[in-house]
């Protein structure tokens, strides 16, 4: 047993007080002359002995109470008998690349081995990760961890390592921990990720379960006049060939041979004129590769240009820059934009409003009750709403229109703060690529300080205040930008990142995809299925879900490269040993038992004392 604050044990010396008092009291007992001392001496021995026993019990109880109090203050704890940290975190990659034959079984075997290495006193947690990291077994016994490992199966997501560290740090916040990552170390797992920094208390161990087998994958599928073009990726070390099969609504439509050189991709043109409706599937055979990337789906349903209403202010010409951006696309990629004043928005017929993909709200001046109700109804029925803060937008009007009781925003100066994307893999920022760095060049003068309750924060200002937020409302989605897009509170419209930002924000608010109706597993909107295939959303819209083609790319990073991407946080001010001790003590809380025992000793002392 060790103590967190051993200095308090000096307080145990107070246990000597009853003894000293007893001795002193005996010494200072007044001398009383008496005549019949021999009669006193004849007191029954049993009684005297019992009295002595009681006295000893009382003394022992008092000493025990004082010692226990000192021990409780010294905060005792048991040091772990097993070597190593007290928490073992096993993170298993279940991205679809792990579906290669034998790969996931090997990962499970590695996990069981790591579990077997855990000491008897160690707690074990299990994390399963692909695009997201999920704690499938919270810190606890090995039995639960083993059951969780056995129950795991490969999923359809891509690899993403950053969330694993987030979860591991979250779990190890109070403990020294060892994180064992068992993965095929797909390189895509590190793409577009901010650098990972782990605390010194988290020891990272990497187990590579990749095999050198190749992989064939269908990575793109599109119509091109009388052909359907299928991109096939060969991740193997030798050329591969085979046949690509097309099907429409599960009915075979066409086939074509393909031949792809080693470690490269080839586009195969399959002679087939696709119909206007249905779901087109391209499939190849790859028994040695990943299981879920051999098919790809394409929605053939005709789609028009998304329609957008910008609610602005005619006096300030708000929405000028946004309108230019949204109308700049070509015939297939652009938007049909119409501008309305807030006062006129209430007069938009419902049948027209229901055709809109997104409403961009840049002003609430003179937005009447009918307009507010139309706006709320539009969003709840599945429409997208993009709100940009500005002097013309009243947060109160928004809160009352959408019936958000917890919504609050306050205009504030934003001196020196710049925009920083919290998650570069967020659908709005994912297409930015290197352009994301430009976000830091935008100069803000004012912004809203928004209470983030009920919102998901996609980007923050460097002063920590939320800059880009989103929330679901009914079947629709609301995206809120905490500064304006009309160059009154910032110079964002002059920045190169403004165009993709507006387009992607609108697309995200409208749940639009690059290819209409096509989603990756990680981006499936609410109500859609998580596995590749065709799904119907709540509003009746059909979508296709495909696996992330980046996951199909081989080779992976090596464990050394993997570890090189992990930075260490600065050493904490406290020595690790002390931190470990604090964690152990905080977990065990033995001082509570000490105080309970002290209470029991005092109760015992009271009972024995009363029988005197």
């Amino acid at each position: 047993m060790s103590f967190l604050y051993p200095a308090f044990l000096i307080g145990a010396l107070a246990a000597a007080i009853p003894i000293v008092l007893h001795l002193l009291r005996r010494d200072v007992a007044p001398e009383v002359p008496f005549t019949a001392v021999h009669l006193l001496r004849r007191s029954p021995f049993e009684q005297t002995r019992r009295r002595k026993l009681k006295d000893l019990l009382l003394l022992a109880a008092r000493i025990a109470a004082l010692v226990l109090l000192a021990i409780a203050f010294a905060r005792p704890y048991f040091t772990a008998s097993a070597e190593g940290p007290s928490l073992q975190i096993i993170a298993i990659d279940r991205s679809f690349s792990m579906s290669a034959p034998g790969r996931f079984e090997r990962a499970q075997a590695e996990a069981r081995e790591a579990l077997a290495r855990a000491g008897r006193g160690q707690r074990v947690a299990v994390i399963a990760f692909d695009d997201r990291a999920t704690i499938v077994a919270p810190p606890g016994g090995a039995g639960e961890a083993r059951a969780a490992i056995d129950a795991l199966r490969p999923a359809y997501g891509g690899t993403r390592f950053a969330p694993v560290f987030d979860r591991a740090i979250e779990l190890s916040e109070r403990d020294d921990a060892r994180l064992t990552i068992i993965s095929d170390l797909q390189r895509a797992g590190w793409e577009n990720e901010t650098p990972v920094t782990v605390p010194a208390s988290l020891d990272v161990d990497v187990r590579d379960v990749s095999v050198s087998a190749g992989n064939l994958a269908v990575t793109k599928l599109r119509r091109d006049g009388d052909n359907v073009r299928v991109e096939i990726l060969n991740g193997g070390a030798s050329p591969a060939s085979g046949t690509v099969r097309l099907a429409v609504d599960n009915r075979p439509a066409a086939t074509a041979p393909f031949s792809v050189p080693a470690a490269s991709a080839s586009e195969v043109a399959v002679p087939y004129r696709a119909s206007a409706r249905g779901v087109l599937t391209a499939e190849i055979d790859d028994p040695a590769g990943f299981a879920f990337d051999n098919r790809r789906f394409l929605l053939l349903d005709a789609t028009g240009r998304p329609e957008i209403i910008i609610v602005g202010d005619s006096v300030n010409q708000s929405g000028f820059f946004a309108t230019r951006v949204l109308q700049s696309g070509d015939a297939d990629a652009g938007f049909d934009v119409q501008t309305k004043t807030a006062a006129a928005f209430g007069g938009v017929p419902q049948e027209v409003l229901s055709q809109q993909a997104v409403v961009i709200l840049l002003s609430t001046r003179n937005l009447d009750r009918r307009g507010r109700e139309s706006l709320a109804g539009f969003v709840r029925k599945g429409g997208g709403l993009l709100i940009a803060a500005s002097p013309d937008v009243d947060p109160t009007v928004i809160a009352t229109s959408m019936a958000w009781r917890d919504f609050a925003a306050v205009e504030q100066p934003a001196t020196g703060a710049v925009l920083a994307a919290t998650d570069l893999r967020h659908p709005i920022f994912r297409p930015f690529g290197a352009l994301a760095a430009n976000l830091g060049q935008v100069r803000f003068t004012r912004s809203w300080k928004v209470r983030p309750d009920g919102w998901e924060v996609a980007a923050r200002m460097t002063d920590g205040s939320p800059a880009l937020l989103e929330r679901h409302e009914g079947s629709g989605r609301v995206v809120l930008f905490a500064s304006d897009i009309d160059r009154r509170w910032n110079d964002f419209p002059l920045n190169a990142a403004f165009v993709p930002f507006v387009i992607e924000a609108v697309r995200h608010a409208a749940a639009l995809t690059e290819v209409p109706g096509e989603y990756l597993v990680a981006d499936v909107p609410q109500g859609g299925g998580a596995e590749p295939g065709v799904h119907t959303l709540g509003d009746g819209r059909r979508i296709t879900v495909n696996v992330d083609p980046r996951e199909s790319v081989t080779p992976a990073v090596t464990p050394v490269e993997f570890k090189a991407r992990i930075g260490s946080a600065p050493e904490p001010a406290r020595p690790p040993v002390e931190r470990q001790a604090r964690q152990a003590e905080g977990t065990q809380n033995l001082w509570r038992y000490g105080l309970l025992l002290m209470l029991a000793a005092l109760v015992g002392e009271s009972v024995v004392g009363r029988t005197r």
Partner: protein
Amino acid sequence: MPAPAPARDLRFLDPAILARLGTMELKARTVVEGFLAGLHRSPYRGFSVEFAEYRQYLPGDDLNTLDWKIYARSDRHYVKKFEEETNLECHVLLDVSASMAYRGSAPMSKLEYGSVLAGALAFLMHRQRDATGLMAFDDRITFRLPAGARAGHLHTLLLALERLQPGQRSSAARPLRQLAEALIKRSMVVVISDLLEDSEPVIRGLRHLKSRGSEVIVFQLLDPHELTFPFQEPAKFRDVESEEELLADPATVRTSYLRQLAGLTLKYDRGLRGAGIDYVQLDTSQPLDFALLSYLAARQRQK
């Protein structure tokens, strides 16, 4: 033993008042006169043949008691009343051991109380023309005044009582034996002691005295502290005779002590009363009348 009259004034028998009085003679006189004044028509009046008073003749009176000289001088019939007189020899044995010097909450120590009692008894005896002797002892006889009835004898005895000092350890058996050997004729022996010692030798000694024809009365003097053991706080109790020390918590040993004391008292009571010896336990905080009444009862038996 007849009970004293309830209306008696006990002021002058109170040890607290006696303690403030001066000489032993004054104390003894105060006790006896106070005691006798309270007796009124005591049945013990008229023990001696000394003249007591004249009373007018009433029909039925014994003609032998008529005082013919008064009749000759005054031509009136008076009856002459006499007090009885004996030649009883009375010995007072006073324990002067160290334990008798103990004084707890009482106004007087046991030795002082015993001295006043002895003095009062001597005074009473002297009034009755009895020869009175005094013997002080601890584990041996430290002072002895032979019995006498002369006029100056009482003064000598009272002076001796006043000068008595506490002695050593008490052991009454040997002095009792020595006294028994010294007594020639039937006497009355009054033993005044706390008797806080082994009871068997003492009882044997007293029985021996009784067997020699003496009337024996034993006054056991105990201080209120010895009777009730009222101490509260743990203390180191030091024996005033043996210097033996004992650390004890009164709360714990009180019951046992009182039981031991009651056992000792019971031994004396049974051992002495069984032999026809009066045994009277006296609380030194209480008036002396009960002691004197006890004496008078024994005196009556001796007669």
